C-alpha cells in the first residue's frame, strides 16, 4: 500500500525523520563493515581503526532512534502501518547496532594481530565478509524501498553464509594443525569468521522486520539454518 501523507504535518515529519535516521544509521553501519573487510583486503590497519571509531556514531544513532520511538508512542499513539513503522524502527536499529559492534570487534582483533596473516584463511574471510556486506546492503535497500521480495531474498540467502562459515572454520582448524605457530592469529581469525556469520544473522533479522513492516505478517516457515 502506498500511503497518503498524514493530515497532521508534524506527525508525518516525525515518521519521515525516523525512517531517514534508520537509513543514515544503516549507511554508517554498511561503511563500518566495508572498512573492516577492506582493512584486511588492502592490508590497511587505518581502515580498521576508522571502523572502530565510527562505532561511536552508530551507538548514538541507536539511542536517538530509541528516543524517537518512545516519543512517537507516547505522544502520537501510532496505529496500523504507523505502529509497525515505529516498532520495526526500534528493532532494526538494535540489529544495526549489533552489526556495527561485530564489525568493530573484528577490527579490534585485526589491530591486535596485524595484516600479515595466513592467505588461505583471509581469502575465505574476505569472500564471506563481502557476502555479508551484500546482505546488509540488500536488506537496507529493502527497508528504504519497501521491497518485500528483496527482504525475502536476504532471508533465504543467509544459509549460504552459515555454510561458508562452517567450512571456513574447518579450513582454519586444518591450517592450524599444519602450522602450530599461527595459533594466536588463527584463534582471532576464528572469532572474526564467526562474527561474519552473526552479521548475516542480524541482516536476516532485519529482513524479517522489513517483511513484517510491509505485510503485517511474519515470514513463514523455518528460518534457514546452516
Amino acid at each position: 500500500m502506498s500511503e497518503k501523507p498524514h493530515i497532521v504535518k508534524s506527525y508525518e515529519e516525525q515518521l519521515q525523520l525516523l525512517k531517514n535516521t534508520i537509513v543514515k544509521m544503516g549507511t554508517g553501519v554498511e561503511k563500518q563493515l566495508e572498512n573492516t573487510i577492506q582493512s584486511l583486503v588492502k592490508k590497511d590497519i587505518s581502515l580498521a581503526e576508522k571502523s572502530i571509531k565510527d562505532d561511536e556514531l552508530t551507538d548514538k544513532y541507536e539511542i536517538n532512534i530509541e528516543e524517537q520511538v518512545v516519543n512517537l508512542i507516547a505522544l502520537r499513539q501510532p496505529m496500523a502501518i504507523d505502529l509497525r513503522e515505529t516498532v520495526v524502527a526500534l528493532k532494526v536499529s538494535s540489529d544495526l547496532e549489533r552489526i556495527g559492534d561485530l564489525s568493530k570487534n573484528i577490527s579490534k582483533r585485526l589491530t591486535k594481530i596485524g595484516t600479515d596473516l595466513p592467505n588461505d584463511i583471509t581469502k575465505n574471510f574476505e569472500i564471506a565478509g563481502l557476502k555479508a556486506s551484500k546482505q546488509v546492503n540488500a536488506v537496507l535497500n529493502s527497508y528504504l524501498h519497501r521491497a518485500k521480495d528483496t527482504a525475502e531474498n536476504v532471508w533465504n540467502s543467509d544459509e549460504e553464509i552459515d555454510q561458508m562459515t562452517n567450512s571456513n572454520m574447518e579450513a582454519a582448524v586444518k591450517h592450524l594443525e599444519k602450522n602450530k605457530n599461527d595459533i594466536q592469529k588463527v584463534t582471532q581469525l576464528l572469532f572474526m569468521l564467526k562474527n561474519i556469520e552473526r552479521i548475516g544473522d542480524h541482516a536476516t533479522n532485519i529482513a524479517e522486520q522489513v517483511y513484517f513492516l510491509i505485510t503485517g505478517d511474519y515470514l513463514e516457515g523455518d528460518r534457514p539454518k546452516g
Partner: protein
Amino acid sequence: MSKIKAENVNVYYGSKQALFDVSIDIAEKEVTALIGPSGCGKSTFLRCLNRMNDVIEICRVEGSIKMDNLELNSRKLDVVRLRESVGMVFQKPNPFPKTIYENVAYGPTIHGIAQSKEEMDQIVETSLKKAALWNEVKDRLDEIGTGLSGGQQQRLCIARAISVSPEVILMDEPCSALDPIATAQIEELIDDLKKEVTIVIVTHSMSQAARVSQKTGFFHLGKLIEFGPTDKIFKNPDNQQTQDYITGRFG
C-alpha cells in the same frame, strides 16, 4: 454467538439515504465498537438497534435487524419491551432532574420490575454498584442527579440503563465529555458489564475503541467499510480507507 444480526439495512432521512446495505453480526457478551468520520451514520445505525429512529418523523429504516431471531424492524414489535432489553447511554449525560434514587428506579418502575420498596432499594443499590457509583452516592441518594459531576452523571445514566437488566447496551460516545479518570472508570465498567451484557459503543477515540472492544466496525459515507477483530483493525486492517482513517490520513 451472534446476538444481533443486521442484514442489508438502508436508512433514509426523507429522500436522503444515510445508511447503505449495512450487514453486521454483533456477538453476544462482547463489546463492538463503531468508528468513522462525523456524519458517516454511526448514531443512525445505533438507533436502529432500539428503534430510536421511530421518533424521527422523516426517518425510514429498511432491511432486517434480528435480535435472537426477533425481527426488530417489524411493525408488530413491542417497542417499549425492546427498549427494556436494549438500553442506551448518550454522549451527554442526561439524568432526569430528579433524585439519584429516582433516576435509577425510573426504569424498573415503568416496566413494573420491582414488587416492593425493599426490592426496588435492592435494584437501585445493585445498579449503582455495577456502575461503580455506589460508594460515591450511597449517602446522598435523595440529592438531585443533575448535581453530580459529569463523570458521575454518566455513571448514573449507566446505572439507570442497567437497572432493568438489559441484554444489550448501546453507547453513543459515552466518554466524550469526561476526563481520563472518569473515562477509565467507564471503560472498566464496560469490561465488567460485558460478562453479562452485549455492548455496542460508538466512539471517536481510536484508542478507546482499541482498549474496550473485541470487534470494530469502520463506517464511511453510510457504508460499513470493514468489520473485524479489533486487534486486526488497528494493527493491520484489510481496507486502505480504514487504515487511512485510523492513522489520521483521511481527506
